[in-house]
């Protein structure tokens, strides 16, 4: 496949995103095909276009304050002890 993006790069991204890819060829080929298709963006002639974002002043946003919620929700979790959720080891 004529693609500037290497399989290794795609594998590396999958790893960084913490995704195990089992059917390796199937995934890499299809992701490759998609990225190849995106090359059409090169012919759009938009290099000089400015990206404008809509400004929303802070005053328009909801007040950033704590709203009490159902504190019994934690009891619905399976891996918790008192107020702590049990997570896997970091190392």
């Amino acid at each position, binding site marked *: 496949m004529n693609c500037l993006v290497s399989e290794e790069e795609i594998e590396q991204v999958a790893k960084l995103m913490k995704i195990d890819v089992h059917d390796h060829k199937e995934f890499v080929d299809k992701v490759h095909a998609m990225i190849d298709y995106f090359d059409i963006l*090169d012919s759009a002639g938009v290099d000089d276009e400015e990206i404008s974002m809509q400004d929303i002043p802070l005053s328009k946003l909801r007040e950033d304050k704590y709203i009490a919620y159902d504190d019994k929700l934690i009891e619905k979790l399976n891996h918790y002890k008192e107020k702590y959720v049990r997570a896997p080891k970091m190392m």
Partner: protein
Amino acid sequence: MNLKISALEYVQEVQNGNISAEDFTAKTLERISQIDDKLHAFLQVNSDAVDQARQIDKKIKSGEKVGACYGMPISIKDNICIKNSKTTCASKMLENFISPYDATVISKLKQEDAVFVGKANLDEFAMGLTTEFSAYGPSKNPWNQDYVPGGSSGGSAVSVASHECIASLGSDTGGSVRNPASFCGAVGYKPTYGLISRYGLISYANSIEQIGPITKTVKDTAFLLNLVTGLDTNDDTTTDNSGQDYLSGIDAGIEGKKIGIIQEMIVEGTDPAVLSATKNAISKFEGLGATCEDVSLDMVKYSVAAYYTITATEAGSNLARYDNLLYGYDFPVEGYEFNSYISKARTKFGPEVIRRMILGGFVPSAGHAGKYYLKALKVKQKLTEEINKVLQGYDYLIAPTVPILPFKIGEKIDDPIALFLVDINTVTSNLTGKPAISVPFAVSNGLPIGMQILANSMEDKSLLQAAHALEGTVKLPEVPI
């Protein structure tokens, strides 16, 4: 009992005392149990629906104030949260997720005494356009069960078109309401971005997605919009529509209006039957007193690539929360180190979700963002400028909703690019924030064709008037199930 009635007819019948909400809901559930084995529109059916309808009948009998829906059975796409019920997103990742809160649209419909008969099937996390990517199997097109119903809100469209409910709510990120509505012969509506709150809609691509109704008639869409639109403090992207009444004046017609026919959406590869339906729709519009002219939106050629780049990027970020620590499923932590635990848990994602997450990690990454993500944002910007300019001279823009007819289940599932191109006519309204509607317009070889109309932002009311006018010019055969 006639389950084929529209939402407005249902309200009238209940108000006149000709039917009760309980009987109608019971018959609706009976129909679901009879035909849904074949169609698979639903992932879950609400077994309390009849009891809930009975409570609404009691309110009616006692003279208590009753909401505008009068116990109307509605289906909800399974990526919209209903408190204390499962919301799976058609994913094994959320197989047993019980939502702890109601989406804003659900709260609003509950206040209006709607009855939710069930959660409708979709492509996993709304990523797809056939429902073939649902982890629980595809829905089938009620017109011909060998064919796809469209997606991702395929279950919603099937449930409405086959009279398993009166109306449905779906979500539209790149055509996910309009595409299945077109394939199933229903009305599908993508409102102006911000018109309906997304609070409680499980996020896929926040910057462009919207909740939208799928109904049997355009008037029913206007009726539902009256109930679910408006500002929401839980969604800062919502827009104040000043309590707009979308139903009043819907018969206004389109005499003297100017309509642009988007040339880039009627391209080589368009099915001859779709082409012929489009020409016929143009004649109908002219017959109604509108003027139709060709218009050009050059950026449409690049819109699908821009759309998939932007949505994959946002999906890569949104789906990072499914790590089994924030969201996920019951899976013991013993024996796993942090990263391997998350990787292992994520194997429950289906293949399309994994592909889009990988894409979403790749296209905005250092070294590639300039070539892909930033360029996609620039295409989005230029497309918006182009459509704004064209809409200065035209009231509406039209094109077929999908350039091809529904295709067979399995026919395109292994070809991502072929699937991409099915979206070519629908993504423009998402990328530009404009409202768009698919109106059932023709049936060819026993399969429906929808016609799409777009309008300027916040011109939803006017758009519904045009759609209602077009709808009045056609009489389609009944769905054969």
